[in-house]
């Protein structure tokens, strides 16, 4: 595919994925699960956000491929240098701390020359899209976020169907 053009050393994607490698899937899963962690409702990873990003990296977000490749490798190495473990192996608090530093542009400049701001904002925007957007793009699996906020899922065309869907339990 054209996506691979100029990238002969492109590593093999994880099984069932189009762009991300197995290691990247795990790191990105931990990253988006820090942004939207599981609680009484699913977190970003279970809601398919990694799939959303993977799919779009071969479509609409093709231009971000190398940014992802780099950011995922670097956050992992930064985690190892800080805590001796890869990012995906860290507890939530430690991951939150690292992402907060990136948000403020204070990540280790050895790994993120701008302090991490750009990568943080990129993944945040995509995570929110995947979690809250339409399920047809791979994220928001099982209408996870819409159930969480208490809005009924997509109506099927025609009024009766829509009325039926409206019986979705009202949350408070």
């Amino acid at each position, binding site marked *: 595919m054209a996506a691979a053009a100029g990238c002969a050393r492109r590593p093999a994607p994880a099984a069932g994925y189009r762009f991300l490698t197995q290691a990247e899937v795990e790191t990105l899963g931990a990253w988006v699960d820090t942004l939207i962690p599981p609680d009484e409702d699913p977190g970003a990873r279970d809601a398919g956000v990694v799939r959303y990003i993977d799919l779009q990296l071969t479509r609409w977000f093709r231009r971000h491929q190398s940014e992802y490749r780099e950011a995922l490798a670097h956050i992992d190495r930064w985690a190892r240098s800080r805590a001796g473990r890869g990012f995906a192996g860290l507890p939530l608090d430690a991951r939150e701390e690292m992402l907060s530093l990136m948000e403020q542009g204070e990540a280790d400049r050895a790994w993120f020359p701008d302090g991490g701001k750009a990568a943080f904002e990129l993944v945040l*925007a995509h995570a*929110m*899209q995947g979690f*809250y957007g339409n399920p047809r793009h791979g994220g928001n699996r099982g209408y996870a976020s819409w159930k969480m906020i208490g809005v009924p899922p997509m109506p099927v065309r025609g009024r009766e169907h829509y009325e039926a869907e409206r019986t979705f339990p009202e949350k408070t």
Partner: protein
Amino acid sequence: MPLPEVDAVVIGAGAAGPIVAKELAFAGWRVVLLEKGRWNTPADCRKDDLRNQRNPTLGYPFGPEEEGNPRVFVDLNGRERIVKPSQPGYNNNAFCVGGGTLSYGAMAWRYHPNDFRMRSTYAAKVPRAFENSTLEDWPISYDDLEPYYEKAEWEIGVSGDVSGDPFQGPRRRPLPMPPLPPTREHEILEKGARRLGLHPFSIPMLRNSVPYNGRPACMRCRWCVGFACEVDAKNGTQNTVIPAALATGNLELRTQCAVREILLNDRGNATGVAYFDRDGRLWEQPARYVVVSCGAIESARLLLNSRSRLYPQGLGNRHDWVGRNLQGHTYTGANGLFEEIVYDDLGPGASIAICDYVHGNPGLAGGAMLANEFIRLPYQFVSGIRDPEAPRWGRAHKEFVRRAYRRIIPVQGPTQEIPVFDSRVTLDPRVRDRFGIPVARISGYRHPHTIEISEYTAQRAADWLRASGAVKVWLRRAGRGVSGGQHQAGTCRMGNDPKTSVVDAWCRVHDTDNVYVVDASVHVTNGAYNPVLTIMAIAYRAGQRLAKEGRRA
């Protein structure tokens, strides 16, 4: 390759062009309507939160296509960049049959009588609005347009109840359809407005509240503004005047045809147009009249791209007014957080308005209609509407969204902008589209008085929310950059003096006998309301006059 001559070629099947095409076709003219985008059916509505005409995260479904249609945007610091349709600065509306009317929110406002005489109303009272601005009166009045407003309301189809708006101009007939039943938000805001002594009422909408024109009523889904309607209850040109005109047998609609230029003779009149079809083939369509209706940015671009010996700077541009005065609306307002659940998931969402702050605001030249927002889809909510003090991510973010999504009401309004001569569309000297045609270059800024007015209207929105019971309110403020976008207007100003305008009071380009611009480009000012009903009314007026006075073959 030249085709057989027709009476008129209309360029652009958006809000305005098809209305003129219909008036001409009904009068027996042979008309060709050329549209750059595609024809969509209700089955193409694709209710996609990330890909719609309001949220192009994954592109625009109703045009333009992401590749091959660049523009150049120049920011406030003079930095220029080439932008694709989904990128900031592009100022998109829509490119398809129906134009913006296929996917719009469908608010159907008449402008206020004073919107047509901004100079007369404010020159003495608010002189600072006239410093470095081109604020002017229109050459026509509200009364001139009134019959055509009525025609648009009945022929395209408007629901609502404006009887409670004491600020509107006189009208002869009520709206043809009643409003949709009120939402929970509507009831909450209505009480708040009354508490403040304001005058709330049901927004007029180009949407069927009952079956009308052979199509069904709205089924009140969540995905309205930015989407096409799957039950075809939203009224645009694509399901009204276009099918009516086609049924006469006098109109031919050619889709995916992009006009490159208007062809001109030695006397400075048009002989037809040159356009590319979907396969990139170049055609010449000779016509006795040429009617331009490409939206304010593209209409200016087309005139500027149509050059001849008489018009070396572009058609109608002898005095350098084509592309000037680009304006839209400065949207400001407030979001209010409530204790109780305010959201009832009944589309289209927007339902209640006040016009108390349209004119007569202390020390200000204008104002805005204020209304509640259309339904906020979840991603739109987290990316834009949420409390700026709420955490953007993490456990607390989730808590916030879970609690607040159904407890927030946004109220906002389109502040009427003070036009600026240097906010403009020109041709970029280098960048070209997929057909090799020079693209629009957008530059300029907002007048400081526009910002001042929009700050005032935002505060009034906040008052309204507080009076309605909001426990926390935060403002939506204006940017300073050039405005255009969905409400783009002003680039081919209507006026009596050819030195300071592009078209006359009947939309004819001053220098010519047979070229008309009929879309939002001709607006002198853009009103304190959404523009589309005014665009339609002007098109009916121009179309009827041309059908009556024009000379056919």
